[in-house]
């Protein structure tokens, strides 16, 4: 028996919706079967909490007197984009600061703002007839800003590579520190709790989907960049390589610094840990069978990050159950595996979203547009010549 978004929302309003996490649902489906479970459960919550570099914030500071058209902008020493209108800016999560480098970057400023801290705003301008001020040096808090919202162009990757280092030197990557001679493997996923692995064909997640975003209620605003829905899939539809991604939007003023945190990857750069939870409405049996997926049935590849080329060698296809076991066997050698994204925090977020829905504080939003399947990603060709 199929359900509609409206029917589920009515149940949420009455406090009658059955909401479970994507980990809990596995046992329910095993016990009751897909058909009965699909009738019983209304919403399955998924979540992830990991480093997502392609993140940042749009901020509007309000006008000073006399006003300025901000050109060069720094916040706590971190450069923000000055190519928007007078007092609008975009602050990228990975932008390092002039004084502390990657140890304090855009993501740290964002996290400090959400924590309510005062930040140092410095701006310069050439001065115009309508914006005569040439310099500005002040302190602002999140509450002082007109608008402040995260707009993250690429978050919650649907599946990602596991990383290994086949060289004889230690390497420092966005997949953490990789020890020489295949000394360790790192991976970054919430696995069977991960949002896009529970809806592999994006049957319920699309433009407009309401989500848990950094502790606030945010939305999926667009397909994420490098959206690779045409990736190889198994016969059920689960991606075998990095697949879809999402662009997310949400109000920083409603966020919690616990779920948005600045991060540093030694020798690589600044990144941002982003907490995202996505509810999946159990509209029918097909969707229920998708969310019942287990780590043993989700696969990725162990990629050699020491090869300085775009196409890196793929050493082995492994399941997330193998990665979570603590070691993976490669060429007869047992290699230690370590996570990079926090399953503990992801579970907390799935639980928190679960509570919101049960309390009738969060309702499902049906996508206003689905994302294309069969989308591929292009590389960048380096062309010779000074002009063309």
């Amino acid at each position, binding site marked *: 028996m199929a359900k509609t978004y409206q029917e589920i929302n009515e149940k949420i309003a009455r406090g009658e919706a059955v909401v479970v996490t994507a980990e809990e649902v596995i046992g329910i489906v095993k016990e009751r079967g897909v058909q009965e479970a699909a009738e019983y459960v209304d919403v399955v919550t998924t979540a992830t909490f990991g*480093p997502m570099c392609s993140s940042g914030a749009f901020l509007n500071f309000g006008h000073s007197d006399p006003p300025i058209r901000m050109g060069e902008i720094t916040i706590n020493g971190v450069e923000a984009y000055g190519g928007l209108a007078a007092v609008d800016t975009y602050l990228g999560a990975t932008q390092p600061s002039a004084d502390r480098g990657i140890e304090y970057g855009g993501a740290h400023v964002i996290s400090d703002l959400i924590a309510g801290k005062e930040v140092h705003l410095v701006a310069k301008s050439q001065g115009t007839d309508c914006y005569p001020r040439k310099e500005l040096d002040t302190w602002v808090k999140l509450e002082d800003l007109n608008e402040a919202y995260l707009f993250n162009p690429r978050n919650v990757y649907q599946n990602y590579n596991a990383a290994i280092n086949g060289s004889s030197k230690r390497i420092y990557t966005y997949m953490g*520190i990789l*020890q020489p001679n295949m000394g360790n493997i790192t991976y970054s996923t919430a696995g069977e709790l991960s949002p896009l692995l529970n809806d592999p064909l994006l049957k319920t997640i699309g433009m407009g989907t309401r989500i848990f975003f950094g502790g606030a209620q945010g939305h999926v605003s667009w397909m994420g960049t490098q959206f690779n829905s045409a990736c190889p899939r198994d016969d059920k539809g689960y991606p075998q390589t990095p697949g879809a991604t999402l662009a997310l939007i949400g109000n920083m003023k409603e966020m919690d610094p616990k779920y948005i*945190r600045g991060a*540093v990857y*030694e020798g690589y750069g600044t990144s941002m840990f982003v907490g995202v939870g996505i509810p999946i409405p159990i509209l029918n049996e097909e969707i229920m069978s998708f969310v019942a997926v287990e780590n043993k049935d989700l696969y990725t590849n162990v990629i050699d990050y020491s090869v300085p080329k775009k196409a890196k060698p793929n050493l082995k296809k492994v399941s997330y159950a193998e990665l979570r076991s603590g070691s993976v066997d490669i060429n007869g050698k047992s290699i230690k595996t*370590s*996570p990079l994204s926090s399953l*503990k*925090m992801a579970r907390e977020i799935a639980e928190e979203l679960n509570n919101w829905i049960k309390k009738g504080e969060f309702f499902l939003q049906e996508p206003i547009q689905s994302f294309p399947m069969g989308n591929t990603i292009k590389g960048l060709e380096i062309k010779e010549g000074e002009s063309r």
Partner: protein
Amino acid sequence: MIAKKILLSFPQKSAGQPMAMELIKTYHLDFNILKAFIDDNIKGTLLIEIKGEEADIEAGIVYLREHQIGVRDIQSVVEVDENKCVSCGACTAVCAVGALEMTVDWSLVHHDDKCLECMLCVKACPMRAIHALI
């Protein structure tokens, strides 16, 4: 006979005292310097392992404290700040001895007695939640 790892911190005015000799002669303690650091202001920290009778170790520590030397019982020179740690697991990737590992519920646990003080975890932690005491 017991062995204990302690971290000593010397304020500038304590420099130049015959601390080592006192510990050996008066309190009959064996000790092994594991790590030492002195900054530009002649403030120093010393990580030592002391061996001796329990009563002697205690008396030796009292002697050190009387001479304004900070004494801290430690197992490991790295400390995990629980408020900053998100249990991502990045530090466990570089901890070859298993001093940092994930529990069954995917929380980070620090078995400080296993730590060999390679300090690689300090660099590996994206939250900068792991601090070196020296």
